[in-house]
């Protein structure tokens, strides 16, 4: 019988009822009295000097309240970057100012220059048209390789070569060179990890109001981490102390990383609301989202693998150019370094690994974390490379992987992380069973009978989630701690509100988190509610990203619940005139061990708030506890994925026929939600592999800025997926033994798809070593023409 209660139960989501009936409350659904509307005039050139801005005609337009320009932000902080990476020469990274509204120059298409605040949105838009803006266009820096050349134009005038940092990590050069010098075979691959746009279906929205009486600002915003926004915007941009700034992220329609960051628009509306003493609202259009939401990926990599005569991996070396865009977004600098370089060992015991990354400024939208953030880039290059090595050596790609698997834990990689636990053989065994490898030949024959090519591709992945020990990330340059917090508030009649720092924007925390508390207390989930997304209600929190909510915030919730149990046992002991050490809690009843004496959960909670018969000299009334949890290590979900594709040789079109994912997420609280997370990740990974890419022309114009041009995966682009998470090796260092499941699908799927396409082509006699993503019909067809 499947569980229907507590940890492990596939409980239906309670939040669904409001979403299914149109009763969700997203930021754009919030309107406040006296609200004004903001429209940004954005740069339509990639790079230029602002020679004049004349707002006088626009200011006279109907309904205009005020027009703001960069001048209004002189002396006010720019948008901060939350992670300082150190160059291999020991210098800090280059960190040019990132203004809220452009100061003197524009550096990417979409950069906000002016903001018109008006009584209606139409009036704001009309007035923006009347602003006389002159920009002297400058040569745009678009190509990363060109950007690094001495003669290149400069995105930031005082930054020749457009280099943000040159980072080196892992084994020393001599060790890696020795490994390559002794290699029996070296496989080399150059590839691009295509630039993507996260595209949560809800565009960003920011609505700010200001209460002059108390000097208090409130920002409603589409954020994955409202406390982080409060801290960054309050402390670094606008100078508003936390107790005067409330940030609310209500229902948020997807994030995928792009709603982590602090954006100019939310700082602007908060600033403007104070200036004009009226609420200011901005709602992004999808077109604006394409040119103002931080983009993802965009790496160009050369990677080399050294193998000995027995096909053991003995050395790995990578050189990556990582696009930062025009400015450093909040966590941009950490993505190609600490979230990418540290994962280059993958699932393999390669003894010498060196990672080199140059981060480059270009006249494009800032690039930052997108689902997986660094780990998909690491996985794609490594797993494509291993497949290429297998083909070159004429060995089975699964066998080559198995031979090199890390098989004992804990395992310290040459790239600084220590995997606490895992079982890569088990997930690979599971995968082989799920995808039915013996049946492949028959399926291939069937495809060929229809005139199609069929290919099979596999890959492994590992990720580091639950970011992570604050003291470690601090040493690595993080400017924040990465713990999380939870408050468990037990009410007098026994119901519970749990205030969590994690934010749910599709992950189902409102359902899954109560399952944990219910399990610990032995009470029904319906007595427990989760409160999230409002800095005025929640003590603190670092938010949701990097598959960390349950591993980090869930652990804080467990710790707070343990404190509740400890105190409740003392109260129960008093009520039953027993010793607290003898009290047991089971199924919501406190009993004295070895006796038939018991009191119910509700009796104890009532006693805490009506302390007539209560040990007041020993413990305080009330039943509310807070815990902050700082993890001891990252968690390391891992798995093996396989894909079967059909390729139409006439058109080059690829269709995904079968996809299987065997994941090790450690313990699982709600398997239904976990499977849904994997499904979504897979579609995003398949989207990256086959469909999605962000295209700039040589002038820095963004050509893929709508759903007419940017190919989002649709229902007909993907199959039913087979997913499994039964090969669980619980995390060894958090109380739930959970690892995180949010990003796996997006990390693990692109190489399997591309490997499958190449298998199909090579089997059909086309000698194709690599095709860059997206593996579009055009690219496949071209590759087949040789």
């Amino acid at each position: 019988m499947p569980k229907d209660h507590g940890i492990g139960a596939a409980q239906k989501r309670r939040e669904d009822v409001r979403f299914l009936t149109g009763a969700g409350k997203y930021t754009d659904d919030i309107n406040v009295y006296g609200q004004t509307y903001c429209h940004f005039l954005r740069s339509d050139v990639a790079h230029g000097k602002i020679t004049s801005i004349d707002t006088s005609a626009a200011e006279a337009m109907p309904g205009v309240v005020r027009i703001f320009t960069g001048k209004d932000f002189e002396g006010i902080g720019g948008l901060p970057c939350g992670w300082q990476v150190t160059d291999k020469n020991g210098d800090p990274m280059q960190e040019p100012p990132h203004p809220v509204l452009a100061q003197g120059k524009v550096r990417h298409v979409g950069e906000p220059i002016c903001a018109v605040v008006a009584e209606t949105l139409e009036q704001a838009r009309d007035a923006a048209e009347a602003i006389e803006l002159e920009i002297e266009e400058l040569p745009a820096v678009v190509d990363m390789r060109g950007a690094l050349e001495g003669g290149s134009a400069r995105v930031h005038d005082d930054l020749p070569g457009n280099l943000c940092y040159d980072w080196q990590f892992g084994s020393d050069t001599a060790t890696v060179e020795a490994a390559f010098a002794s290699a029996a075979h070296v496989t080399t691959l150059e590839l691009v990890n295509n630039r993507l746009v996260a595209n949560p279906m809800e565009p960003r929205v920011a609505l700010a109001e200001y209460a002059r009486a108390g000097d208090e600002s409130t920002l409603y915003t589409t954020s994955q981490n409202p406390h982080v926004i409060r801290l960054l915007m309050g402390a670094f941009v606008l100078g508003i102390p936390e107790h005067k700034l409330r940030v609310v992220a209500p229902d948020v329609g997807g994030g995928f990383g792009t709603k982590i960051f602090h954006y100019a628009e939310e700082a602007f509306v908060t600033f403007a609301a104070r200036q004009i003493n009226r609420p200011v609202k901005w709602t992004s259009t999808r077109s604006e989202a394409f040119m103002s939401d931080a983009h993802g990926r965009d790496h160009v990599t050369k990677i080399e693998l050294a193998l000995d005569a027995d096909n053991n991996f003995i050395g790995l070396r990578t050189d990556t150019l990582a696009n930062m865009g025009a400015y450093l977004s909040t966590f941009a600098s950490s993505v190609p370094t600490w979230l990418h370089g540290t994962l280059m060992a993958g699932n393999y015991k390669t003894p010498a690994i060196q990672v080199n990354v140059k981060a480059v400024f270009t006249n494009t939208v800032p690039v930052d974390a997108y689902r997986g953030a660094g780990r998909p880039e690491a996985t794609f290059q490594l797993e494509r490379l291993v497949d290429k090595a297998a083909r070159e050596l004429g060995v089975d790609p699964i066998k080559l992987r198995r031979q090199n698997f890390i098989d004992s834990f804990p395992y310290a990689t040459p790239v600084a992380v220590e995997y606490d636990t895992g079982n890569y053989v088990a997930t690979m065994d599971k995968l082989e069973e799920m995808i039915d490898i013996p049946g492949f030949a028959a399926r291939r024959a069937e495809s060929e009978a229809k005139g199609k090519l069929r290919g099979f591709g596999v890959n492994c992945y590992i990720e580091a989630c639950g970011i992570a020990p604050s003291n470690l990330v601090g040493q690595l340059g993080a400017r924040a701690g990465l713990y999380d917090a939870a408050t468990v508030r037990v009410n007098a009649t026994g119901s519970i509100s749990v205030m969590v720092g994690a934010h749910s924007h599709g992950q189902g925390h409102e359902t899954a988190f109560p399952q944990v508390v219910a399990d610990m207390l032995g009470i029904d989930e319906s007595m427990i509610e989760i409160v999230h997304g409002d800095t005025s209600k929640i003590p603190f929190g670092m938010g949701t990203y990097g598959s960390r909510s349950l591993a980090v915030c869930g652990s804080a919730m467990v710790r707070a619940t343990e404190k509740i149990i400890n105190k409740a046992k003392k109260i129960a002991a008093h009520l039953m005139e027993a010793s607290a050490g003898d009290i047991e809690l089971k199924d919501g009843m406190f009993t004295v061990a070895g006796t038939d004496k018991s009191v119910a959960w509700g009796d104890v909670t009532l006693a805490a708030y009506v302390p007539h018969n209560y040990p007041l000299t020993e413990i305080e009334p009330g039943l509310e506890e807070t815990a902050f949890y700082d993890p001891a290590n990252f968690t390391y979900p891992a798995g093996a994925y396989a894909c079967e594709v059909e390729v139409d040789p006439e058109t080059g079109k690829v269709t995904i026929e079968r996809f299987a994912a065997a994941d090790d997420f450690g313990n699982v609280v709600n398997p239904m939600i976990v499977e849904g997370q994997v499904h979504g990740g897979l579609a995003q990974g398949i989207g990256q592999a086959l469909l999605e890419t962000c295209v700039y022309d040589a002038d820095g114009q963004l050509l893929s800025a709508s759903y007419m041009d940017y190919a989002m995966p649709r229902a007909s682009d993907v199959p039913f997926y087979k997913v499994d998470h039964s090969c669980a090796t619980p995390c060894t260092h958090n109380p739930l033994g959970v690892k995180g499941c949010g990003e796996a699908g997006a990390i693990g799927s692109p190489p399997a798809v591309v490997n499958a396409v190449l298998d199909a082509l090579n089997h059909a006699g086309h000698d194709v070593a690599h095709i860059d993503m997206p593996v579009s019909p055009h690219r496949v067809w071209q590759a087949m023409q040789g």
Partner: protein
Amino acid sequence: MTKVTMTVNGKTVSKEVRGNMLMTEFLRDELHLTGTHVGCDTSQCGACNIHVNGANVKGCTIFAAECDGAEIATIEGQANADGSLNVIQQAFQDHHGLQCGFCTPGMVMSAAALLKETPKPTEAEIRHYLEGNICRCTGYHNIVKAIMAASGQDVSSIAAE
């Protein structure tokens, strides 16, 4: 300004509207029916799907003035009379056919329109019909499964979990 009168979820409403007011704006701003969402500006995403005289229409492609006299159904009117989820909504919950919920109103409206036309659609028919509804969270797996289940089909063998 034009006066329009229409029936929305069974209730008659009359309002003065601008000639260029889209149905999405009319529903959200004038009637405060914020369940109809706006996810794009090129009529691609389908988060704003509503029914106009029974036809499945993207609310961003039609002016309020064009709907004068029409019968409009939105997500807010889909539940059963007692407030419980209707068959399609219930199937979406049962099969985890939604995550962030933003595309969900459009998905439910499209699913309802599909099942009216094709009471027992195949997987391929569902995927084809949802061409105009983008979801970024679910990978479509559970949406397709939910719609099949809502049409009374046995979905227990789909991609054994």
